[in-house]
C-alpha cells in the first residue's frame, strides 16, 4: 500500500508542478489579451477611489451594474456639493469583494451608499480575480490573505480563460473601459432610447423575495456599518432602480420584503422600494439599467434623499 500511496502522491505532485509551469507560460504568452472590458472599468473606479483626498468628506455609492447605467457621479457631485465616487460595475464582482476593496478608503465624514439589489447573492466574484491577475495584483492582496483557497481554485480557471480568450475578439458594446475613462462614469455613452419594449420589460418580471437575498451579504453589510460608525462615516441604504412595469410583487409583499430587510440590516434605509421604480421609457437594456433620462432622474432622486444627511 505504501508504494501505491507514494506513487499516487508523486503523480499528483508532478501534475501540480506541470500546472504551475503551464499556467505561468500561458500567462506570459497571453499578456494583455483583455484590452477593453468591464473589468478594466472596475479597476479604473478603484484607482479613482484610491486617489481621493482622505481629508475631504465624500460620497461613495457602491453596488452592481445598475449603477454603471443609472448613476452620474458628476451630477451627484453638483447636486450634493460633495465629491462623489461610484464603485459598481457588475454584480459578478461580488458585493463582499467590493466592500473589501473599498473599506480602506472610507474616512471620517464620508457617506457610503448601497442601493440594495436583491440578487446580491454573489459572494466573491471570480471575474475580479481574473482582472486582478491581468495587471493589478495589488487588488488581490486582501483577498489572498483572507481567502487563499478561493484564489488557488480560481488561478487555473483564469489561465484556461486566457487561452480561450484568445479566440474572443468581440468587445462588449456596453461594458468597456473606454466608457469610464472619459469622465467619472458611464453617462456619456449614447443610449437615449430603451432597447426593450414595455411588453418585454413586463415579461421580464421581477419579484422581491427574501429567498433571493444571501444572508452572507446581509452580515457583511452590517459589518461595514459597524466599520463606518467606527471611522465616523455613515452607511445608508437605498434600493436599486427598477422598471416599474416589470415588478410583479403585490404591494403587501413588497412591504413584507422591506420590513424583513429593515429587521436584518443595521444601517438605515433612506427610501422605500417604490421610490426607486422608474417608467419603462427611462429604461435601457434591462429592467435595472436606465437610459440617459433615467440616469438623470435616479441621480437627482438620490441627491434629494442624501441631502438631509449632508452636514
Amino acid at each position, binding site marked *: 500500500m505504501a508504494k501505491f500511496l507514494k506513487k499516487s502522491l508523486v503523480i499528483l505532485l508532478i*501534475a501540480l508542478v506541470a500546472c504551475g509551469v503551464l499556467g505561468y507560460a500561458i500567462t506570459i504568452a497571453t499578456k494583455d489579451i483583455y484590452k477593453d472590458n468591464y473589468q478594466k472599468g472596475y479597476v479604473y473606479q478603484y484607482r479613482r477611489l484610491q486617489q481621493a483626498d482622505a481629508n475631504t468628506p465624500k460620497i461613495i455609492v457602491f453596488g452592481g451594474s445598475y449603477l454603471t447605467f443609472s448613476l452620474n457621479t458628476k451630477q451627484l457631485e453638483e447636486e450634493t456639493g460633495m465629491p462623489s465616487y461610484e464603485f459598481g460595475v457588475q454584480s459578478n464582482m461580488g458585493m463582499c469583494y467590493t466592500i473589501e476593496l473599498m473599506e480602506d478608503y472610507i474616512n471620517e465624514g464620508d457617506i457610503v451608499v448601497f442601493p440594495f439589489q436583491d440578487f446580491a447573492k454573489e459572494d466573491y466574484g471570480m471575474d475580479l480575480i481574473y482582472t486582478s491577475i491581468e495587471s493589478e495584483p495589488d487588488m488581490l492582496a486582501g483577498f489572498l490573505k483572507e481567502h487563499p483557497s478561493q484564489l488557488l481554485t480560481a488561478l487555473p480557471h483564469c489561465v*484556461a480563460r486566457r487561452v480561450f480568450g484568445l479566440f*474572443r475578439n468581440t468587445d462588449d458594446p456596453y461594458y468597456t473601459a473606454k466608457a469610464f475613462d472619459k469622465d467619472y462614469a458611464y453617462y456619456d455613452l449614447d443610449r437615449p432610447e430603451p432597447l426593450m419594449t414595455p411588453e418585454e420589460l413586463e415579461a421580464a418580471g421581477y419579484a422581491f423575495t427574501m429567498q433571493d437575498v444571501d444572508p452572507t451579504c446581509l452580515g457583511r453589510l452590517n459589518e461595514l456599518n459597524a466599520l463606518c460608525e467606527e471611522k465616523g462615516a455613515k452607511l445608508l441604504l437605498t434600493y436599486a432602480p427598477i422598471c416599474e412595469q416589470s415588478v410583479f410583487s403585490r404591494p403587501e409583499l413588497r412591504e413584507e420584503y422591506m420590513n424583513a430587510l429593515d429587521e436584518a440590516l443595521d444601517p438605515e434605509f433612506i427610501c422605500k422600494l417604490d421610490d426607486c421604480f422608474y417608467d419603462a421609457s427611462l429604461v435601457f437594456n434591462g429592467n435595472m439599467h436606465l437610459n440617459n433620462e433615467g440616469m438623470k432622474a435616479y441621480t437627482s432622486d438620490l441627491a434629494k434623499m442624501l441631502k438631509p444627511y449632508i452636514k
Partner: protein
Amino acid sequence: MSFTTLKFIIFFGIVFCCYFTFPKKYQRYILLVASYVFYAFTSVQAFLMLIAITLITYVGGLRIGKINDLESEYLKANTLEKDEKKKYKALQQKKRKRVITLVILLLLAILGFFKYSKFIFADVQWVLNLLNMGVHFKYESILLPAGLSFYIFQSMGYTIDVYRGMVEAEHDLSKYALYVAYFPHIMQGPLGDYSRLSPQLYGQHDFDRRSAVFGLQRVAWGFFKKLVIANSLQIAVDRAFNAYYTYEGIVWILVLFFYSIQMYADFSGYMDIANGCSQMMGITLDENFSTPYFSKNIAEYWRRWHISLGAWFRNYVFYSLLRSPWLDGIRKKYKKQKKTYLSQTLPNVFALLITWLCIGMWHGAAWTYIAHGMFHGFFVIMDSAMSPVVTKWRKNHAKISDSVWFNGFRIVRTFIIVNIGYAMFRAQSLEVTGYVLKSIFSGVHKSVLGAFLFNHYYYIISAFIGGIVLLLVDIYHEKHLELGGLRTVISQKSAPVRYAIYIMGIVAIIFLGTYGDASLNSFAYFQF
C-alpha cells in the same frame, strides 16, 4: 461533505489508510465510524434521523426474522395436517404483514413529512390565499435531511426482503448500521441490494494494488465528469432557467441539451467517485448507469439510467402491484372472457401508471417531478401496450428494423423525448416548462442565442472538450460492454505512457474544471 471538496479528499485518504493499516477485523468498524462522521457533517438533525431510520428498520427486520425463525422451528418440531399447516402459516404471515406494514408506514410518514409537507402546505396555502382565509402555515423551516430518500428506500428494501424471506434478518446492529450508512452510497445511492452488498461490507479485505489503481482511476474520471462537464454546464443552464423570461427561441434546445449532459455527467460522475472509492477498499457497488443516452426507447433508457432506482421500483412496487388482488382480479376477469390482450396488458398498464407516479414523486415534492414521472411513464406504458404490434412489424420488416440508420433514429428520438422530459424536471414550475416548450417554436431569435453563447463561451468550450472525451469513452464502453475495459487497456501500457495519461488527466481537471464556488460542490441528486 461533498465528494468534490478538499475536505473529502483528506477524509477519504485517512479512511483508506486506516482501513488497510488496522487489523482486518476492525475494517467494518472503521467504515461505520467514517460513514457516521461523513454524514454528521451534513447536520446533527440529519444524523439523528439516520440513526432513527436504522433502528426502525433494524428492529422491524429482527421482529420479522424472529417470526420466520419461530415458524420454521414450530413446523419442524410439530407434524401438522395440511389444513392446520396452512392456517398456522397464514397466522404467521398476518403477524409479519403487521410488522412490515408498520415499518413501511413509519418510513413513508417520515419521508412524507420531510419531503412532501412543504409541497402540500404550499398548495393548501395557495387555496387558502385564494379564499382570503387569512391563515398562514409556517412550513418554510422544514429541511429535508440529505440523502433521506436514498437511505429510507435502501432500508425499506432490506425489510421487505426479510419479509419475503429473501434474506436473513441481521442481528448485529453495527453491521446493519454500516449497510444503511456506508458513506459512498448514503447520499445518492446506488440503492444497494442487501444480499449482494452486505457480505462485502462485513467481509475482510486485503490491499489489492490493481483494485486500488482502478478505483483511483475511476474516482479521477468522476471528478473530470463533475468538474469539467457538469459544473461548467450547470452555470449556463442555471442562468437560463433563473432568468427564463429573458430567453426565447431555439436557445432552449441548446439549454435542454446542456442540461441532459450536465445531469448525466453530474450523476454518473458521483457514481464513479462512489464506486471508485469503494473499489479501492475492495467493495464493489452496483452500477447505476450504462450509457443511457444510447437507449432506443424510454423503457430501455430506464434500464440504463439510475439502474438501482429502476430496479428498486420494479422489485418492490411494480411486482407487488402486479401481484395485488386488485390487478390479479382484472387479469382473471379478462382471461375468463378470453380477452388475452386485455388480461395481459391492463394490469401492466395500471401497475406501470402507479409505479411511474411514485417514481415522479420520489424525485421531489413538486408538480414538475410528477409531470416528469408521468411523461416517462406514458412512453413506457405505450411501449408495453404496443408491444405485440411492434414485435409483429419488426418481424415483417426485419431489414429496416435492424438497420443502423433506423436504430440511430430510435436513439435520437429517445434522446429528444428525454430532453423534453427535462423541461419539466428542471423548470421551477409547470408554467416555466410551458414557457420553455412554447418558446422553442417561437423562432430562432439569433440575438438571444448569440448572447447566451457569448456570455457562457468559456464554460461551453470547457464542457465541449470534456463532452467529446466523455462521448468517446461512452462509445468505447458501448462497443466493448465489459466493465473497466478502458482501464484494462491503460493498465497494459508502459509505465511512462500510463503516468503521462494520469498527469494529463489531472492537469485537464485543474485547468478545465469549474470549481471553487461552494454552490457547485453539491451534486444534482443530493436534493432527492
